[in-house]
């Protein structure tokens, strides 16, 4: 099988080809490594690629298959892994200077499950430092570019993962979604990206940004592939106390089912309208009409508390991060600055943190430290938690009448690199539509719904479902994906500059 044939396949097809012996894990891995070598100089999706380690993993998978083991449908399929998950055989930095060169002694649960599933970790992908950002411009190791337009952002924080999959450098990638960090990059790169139910996928080994929000999830070029990856690494993990002890929702089955007949779809009134790019709204409206034409019952739903979601998020997430990032103190791992025998441990900690963290990380640590301070706690962290409760209630009330909620995934398509780096508030608005699902902990997914007329860049449709009803998001997404491909005569990504 030729390298270009391999790279063009879906993950499901590639997994089947490896199982049937048409190709091998080693051959598939080699094909993708070649593709990375060819294009990553322009895209900069990866922070770390180790050809030998990847090929060694692939050969081990081939040996398992030859021995009659059945690791599952993705055995032999390469995956790009967000650099926020620990990997015992590769460095893990969370794109921060403070962890430069750190080699964890252990695999994250998600990493371990990828390996169990016979997947080959190609390398670690770029991201906003500690997953704080919406453009991957906050990485300490350079920006990642959007394969649709190299002068634009790939989204963030999982922008290395979205760019890698969109540029065909990997068939699949992992991401983490704290306020939209999977769905927003998926939307602006023309991919499928899912934020599972909070607790549906394990956080053990995920370098924490905001513990009550962080959720590992898949990025893929199509809905079925996303579902297969979702299923491969999700499920209960006793090492994560917040992990849900329930079966993984039947996402693969739902992705194959792909029908919306009789499904009740609610359009969230508060997510749309003024401030949204017209081309984004147009594609969104068409997608809703499409769902109706496929037999769904569409109604408008109001979730008034969603208006306060962004503000609540920017108190809760920084508060948690201010505490989570306290461990980076130069004592046990990572960067150490100024330890010349004349300084106290406290001084070394302070110098290290001053040099090791980037400006956005510092901004959020300071914000969170302030929000948790004695005398301010009730006004900031306390009220933000109350808003969170109200948002949950809005979702609960909505889901009494509808099966899923829909909205645009992002207010705009991919914006130009550098456009918002000087204006944090403008940057934060990129997550306006995605944040409510994080605050409530329910399932959400972004699926491409076309290109905006103004800029010919991808637009994402967000589908939200109740907690542990992740399968509904896949069912709707698969129906939209199939209908749009019929109309268009092929997948959206075929129009990208980096299509193969």
């Amino acid at each position: 099988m030729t390298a270009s044939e391999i790279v063009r396949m879906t993950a499901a097809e590639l997994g089947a080809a490896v199982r049937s012996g048409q190709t091998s894990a080693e051959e598939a891995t080699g094909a993708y490594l070649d593709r990375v070598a060819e294009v990553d100089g322009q895209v900069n999706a990866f922070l770390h690629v180790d050809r030998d380690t990847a090929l060694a993993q692939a050969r081990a998978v081939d040996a398992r298959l030859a021995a009659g083991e059945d690791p599952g449908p993705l055995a032999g399929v390469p995956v790009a892994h967000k650099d926020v998950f620990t990997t015992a055989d590769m460095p893990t930095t969370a794109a921060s200077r403070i962890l430069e060169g750190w080699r964890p002694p252990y695999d994250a649960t998600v990493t371990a499950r990828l390996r169990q599933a016979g997947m080959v970790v190609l390398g670690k992908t770029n991201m906003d430092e500690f997953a704080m950002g919406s453009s991957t411009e906050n990485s300490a190791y350079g920006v990642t570019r959007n394969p649709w337009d190299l002068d634009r952002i790939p989204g963030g924080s999982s922008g290395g993962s979205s760019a890698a999959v969109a540029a065909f450098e990997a068939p699949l990638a992992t991401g983490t979604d704290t306020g939209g960090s999977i769905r927003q990059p998926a939307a602006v790169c023309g991919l499928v990206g899912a934020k599972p139910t909070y607790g549906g996928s394990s956080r053990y080994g995920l370098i924490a940004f905001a513990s009550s929000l962080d959720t590992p999830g898949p990025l893929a070029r199509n809905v079925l592939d996303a579902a297969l990856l979702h299923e491969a690494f999700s499920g209960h993990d006793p090492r994560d106390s917040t992990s849900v002890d329930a079966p993984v929702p039947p996402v693969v089955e739902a992705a194959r089912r792909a029908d919306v007949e009789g499904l009740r779809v609610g359009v969230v009134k508060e997510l749309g309208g003024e401030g949204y790019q017209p081309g984004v709204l147009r594609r969104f409206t068409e997608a809703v009409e499409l769902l109706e034409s496929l037999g769904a019952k569409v109604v408008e739903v109001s979730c008034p508390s969603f208006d306060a979601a962004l503000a609540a998020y920017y108190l809760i997430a920084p508060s948690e991060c201010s505490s989570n990032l306290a461990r980076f103190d130069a004592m046990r791992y990572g960067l150490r600055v100024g330890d010349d025998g004349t300084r106290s441990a406290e001084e070394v900690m302070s110098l290290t943190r001053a040099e090791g963290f980037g400006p956005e990380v510092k901004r959020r640590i300071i914000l969170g430290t302030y929000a948790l301070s004695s005398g301010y706690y009730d006004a900031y962290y306390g009220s933000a938690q109350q808003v969170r409760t109200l948002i949950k209630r809005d979702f609960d009330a909505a889901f009494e009448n509808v099966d899923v909620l829909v909205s645009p995934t992002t207010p705009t398509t991919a914006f130009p690199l550098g456009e918002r780096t000087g204006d944090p508030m403008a940057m934060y608005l990129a997550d306006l539509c995605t944040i409510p699902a994080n605050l409530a902990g329910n399932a959400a997914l972004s699926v491409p719904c076309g290109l905006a007329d103004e800029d010919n860049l991808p637009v994402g449709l967000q589908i939200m479902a109740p907690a542990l009803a992740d399968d509904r998001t896949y069912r709707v997404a698969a129906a939209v994906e199939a209908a749009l491909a019929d109309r268009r005569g092929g997948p959206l990504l075929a129009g990208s500059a980096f299509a193969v």
Partner: protein
Amino acid sequence: MVGAVTNGPATSGVGPAPVAFDDAMRSYEPVLGLETHVELGTASKMFCSCATAFGAAPNTQVCPVCLALPGSLPVVNGAAVESAIRLGLALNCSVASWCRFARKNYFYPDMPKNYQISQYDEPLCSDGYLDVTVDTPEGPREFRVEIERVHMEEDTGKTAHMGGATGRIHGAEYSIVDYNRAGIPLLEIVTKPIEHTGELAPQVARAYVAELRDLVRSLGISDVRMEQGSLRCDVNVSLMPRGGTEWGTRSETKNVNSLRSVERAVRSEIERQAGVLNSGGRVVQETRHFQENTGTSVPGRSKEEAQDYRYFPDPDLVPVAPSAEWVEELRATLPELPAAKRARIKAEWSLSDEELRDLVNADAIELVAATVEAGAPPADARKWWLNELSRRATETEVELADLPITPEQVARVVALVAEGALTNKLARQVVDGVLNGEGDPDTVVEARGLKVVSDDSALGAAVDEAIAGDPDAAEKVRNGKVAAAGALVGAVMRATRGQADAGRARALILERLGVQ
């Protein structure tokens, strides 16, 4: 306990001379508060599966979780929660049906996450009490110490300062951190303000810690070895003028790690604060460190520059929600608690108040009870622990319970004496051997050849020899002067190097000489 009474100049470390305790008590009424940390004896740490054994080589009982490696997450140790609930129940607390862990944020090199997982406004157990008894010249007096809360938290690592002369951070060349202790489960037991103790305050504080220690020990949730730091005390003291109603500013003395130190720390702090107040000064709200060698404290961090711990519920953990059934089951299976045990023992052994007090003061009640349980008569068990063994403990400067002899071994020694296999003198030698690490009493008897010579053939030979060796004495006995047998018994004892049963030897002598 806040609110300064006086407004004089702030004074802490180097201050006016302390006032003698009795003088201080004439002017002031102390208010106490005690915060006690108990290291639990669970097999694994609070939030990971690392072992908790004391004394392991540095940094050998660590993992990604307790080293706070990026990405690692805590999982609550259910056994620690159970221990906390049991202690709460034994302290007559109510147990929360739902509570959370909170993060206490502050930077310190031996705290891996730079926050401690603790509990803040939602403790697992709250509002209990512990009754303690203090001896007074007028007889025993009982005080009820009210318990504010019992909550769960994790211990920090340990920093050792190397180089330099003092072993303290100032002057040290470098420091090393051992994370073996990081994450060991702790219970913090906080009292409500203890008032109206007057001059008995130091003894009440000591009695409370002793009673708490015995309670913890009876529950089997910790070995509570104060010298190993598995029970540590912080002592809060404030003074108010006699007849006043407004509490003074308190200080918190940390590092109080023996019963004697608790008493001394309270006493010296009362004396120090009285000195400050008498000279028109103002007591500073501060943390002080107790010095074992001087029995006084030196100032540490002032609360006026106190940290803001930014407590918030730990989002990595789910709430602890013990079911009512579980709590009731734990309540129903509590062992007999020390106070009940004391009452029972006093009645069963017919002890006077003084005899019970001696047992309690010698810290011997559990040891004696265990010895009785192992078969010894109460009087013998008491005699051994209060006399011989207490003396050994004092000589070797260890706690009675830390002597290398078990109640079972003491009971065996008692049994051997009762059987006539040992004399009291030999029994003390056997105890010597056990304390020396020579093994069980029977092993020591065997190895040292200490068995009483009571077997009649061996003894008979010695008796015959004695009679033959002193015909005069033998003749006198035959003629009815029984007292003359003493010389013959002495000869037998000399010949057997003291191992003969003197009573048996005498009986045999009289028998041989035809006297009944």
